[in-house]
């Protein structure tokens, strides 16, 4: 307790109450749409359409989950989401880290020009090149294939730049020692740099996976077959004109779409809170 706190306890108390009330309100606003997804997913259809609407189901049911697998090839969509988001993440981590290694550790003619060129492409929004990329993927015969979904995103300028910065921050002595022992550059990359870059790779990997798992426009453009879409793009087929699918079924599909990322976040969050708590203790 500081001296000011002791002098004016009542006013500070009121301010603290306001702070907590404000935060409770903000948290409620953040959680309401998530709560409606979770609760509605388990509501019988009669209750979903009943008036007045309620938040929590009176009776819990799994019928909405059974129906989402009837309305859509949902098992296939889950697989597609995993292959697409997972594939992009793995390839991008591999190719980005290889390129970043060359830019951070190998001195060669033109490295600066190349780095600037890569940073320049970082500013291009993918929406701006969507049409020629679509034409190229179509010419390759890759529409409705995993290759078409993954290949255009299998290298990423941001990832290269991000990993280069991280590699530069690793002490040179680490790889110089290996160089003296006669290790090849690839061996240094694989056995010295990558193991030391796990936190950066994790950060970039989570970022890439979440972005692709949640993307709508990309799978919408590169897949026309309902069997090749992702969970996100598949669910949009049920809305819009003619989409008279009960909300409970939509929310069951939405819950399945959100669940893997929510679980992943809650697991990472614990570590995140830990690191914040330790640095905040100083």
């Amino acid at each position: 307790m500081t001296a000011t706190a002791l002098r004016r306890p009542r006013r500070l108390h009121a301010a603290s109450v306001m702070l907590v009330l404000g935060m409770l309100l903000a948290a409620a606003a953040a959680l309401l749409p998530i709560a409606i997804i979770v609760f509605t997913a388990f509501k019988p259809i009669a209750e979903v359409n009943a008036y007045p609407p309620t938040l929590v189901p009176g009776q819990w049911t799994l019928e909405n989950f059974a129906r989402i697998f009837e309305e859509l090839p949902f098992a296939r969509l889950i697989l597609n989401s995993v292959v697409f988001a997972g594939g992009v993440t793995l390839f991008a981590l591999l190719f980005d880290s290889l390129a970043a290694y060359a830019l951070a550790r190998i001195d060669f003619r033109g490295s600066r020009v190349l780095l600037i060129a890569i940073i320049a492409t970082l500013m291009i929004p993918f929406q701006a090149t969507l049409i020629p990329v679509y034409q190229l993927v179509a010419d390759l015969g890759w529409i409705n294939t995993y290759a078409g979904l993954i290949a255009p995103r299998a290298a990423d300028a941001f990832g290269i730049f991000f990993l280069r910065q991280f590699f530069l921050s690793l002490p040179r002595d680490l790889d110089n020692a290996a160089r003296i022992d006669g290790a090849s550059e690839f061996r240094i990359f694989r056995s010295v740099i990558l193991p030391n870059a796990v936190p950066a790779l994790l950060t970039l990997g989570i970022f890439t996976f979440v972005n692709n798992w949640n993307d709508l426009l990309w799978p919408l453009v590169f897949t026309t077959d309902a069997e090749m879409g992702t969970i996100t793009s598949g669910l949009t087929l049920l809305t819009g004109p003619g989409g008279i699918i009960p909300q409970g079924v939509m929310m069951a599909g939405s819950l399945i779409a959100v669940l893997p990322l929510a679980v992943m976040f809650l697991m990472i969050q614990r570590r995140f809170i830990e690191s914040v708590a330790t640095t905040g203790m100083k």
Partner: protein
Amino acid sequence: MSTTLHTPATRYRPPAPLGGRSSARPRSTRRSVLALLFLAPALVLLGAFVAWPMLSAFRLSFTDSSGFGRESWVGLENYARVFTDPAVLRALGNTALYAALFTPTAVISALLLALALNHPRLPLRGAFRTALFLPFVVSLAVAAFAWSYLLDPQIGLLNHWLRGGGIQLGNVLQDPTLAMPTVALVAVWKNFGFYMVIFLAGLQEIPASLREAAVVDGASAWQRFVHITLPMLSNTFAFVLIVALIAALQAFDQIYVMTGGGPFGSTQTIVMEIYESGFRELELGFASALSYVLLAITLLLSLVQFVFFGRREQDTQ
């Protein structure tokens, strides 16, 4: 370090810094080949799927291509259409309106919540942070499903609660004036947690000694906020602002789900227009011209961001 100098086997030289002088010494071709091997997969992919499409879109933007058959050169016709066609001008205006609604709301709410989370007397800090960040893992499309249901005029829970409080919203997604604020709100809900976390990181970089010194000098909470927190946070603020603006320019997902650009084109944005003209009406030339307009605006904002980034890096050195 001294062992490095004495060993002839080492070929390592530090890479050229981005802004520094390049070394005048000749570099071995072997190292260039080696570097190219490492770079090859990324360069091939970026070349094929970013660089070449950039050039291709530029060429397309001067043609009447439909993707099939013959295409002819139409000069600046597509660009002229971008700036004269009332529907396209409306989409540009709508995007500006969306950015004007989304950016300040998202950035300011993120800043306020980061300040609250950073407040020394806040209990359950971790739980609040988790709750506030959770919307960020929900896709915009799924957020759009949930909000559409919450706001449904008949069975929507939020609409029902608001009616109970005397607020008659009606069918917001069918209302030409309320549809745009609604789709912007959905994006604010999804993204504020992300900006909040960036602000939190910025806040934690402010040395505690500054605040303590101000407390000792008798500065009020408001004075500390205006004279310490805000100036120390200005770079973070500029960064978040530009990232949010660029995100606003690319608005698509929740609009596609909630309104499809309607009612009466009132939520039609640039990317919605690119998608529809490019992939539904197959006017590839026109869609490419519009893409280049989007690109030009984004590049302008990115350059501002880059300048700020450069300043940030210099500041920390």
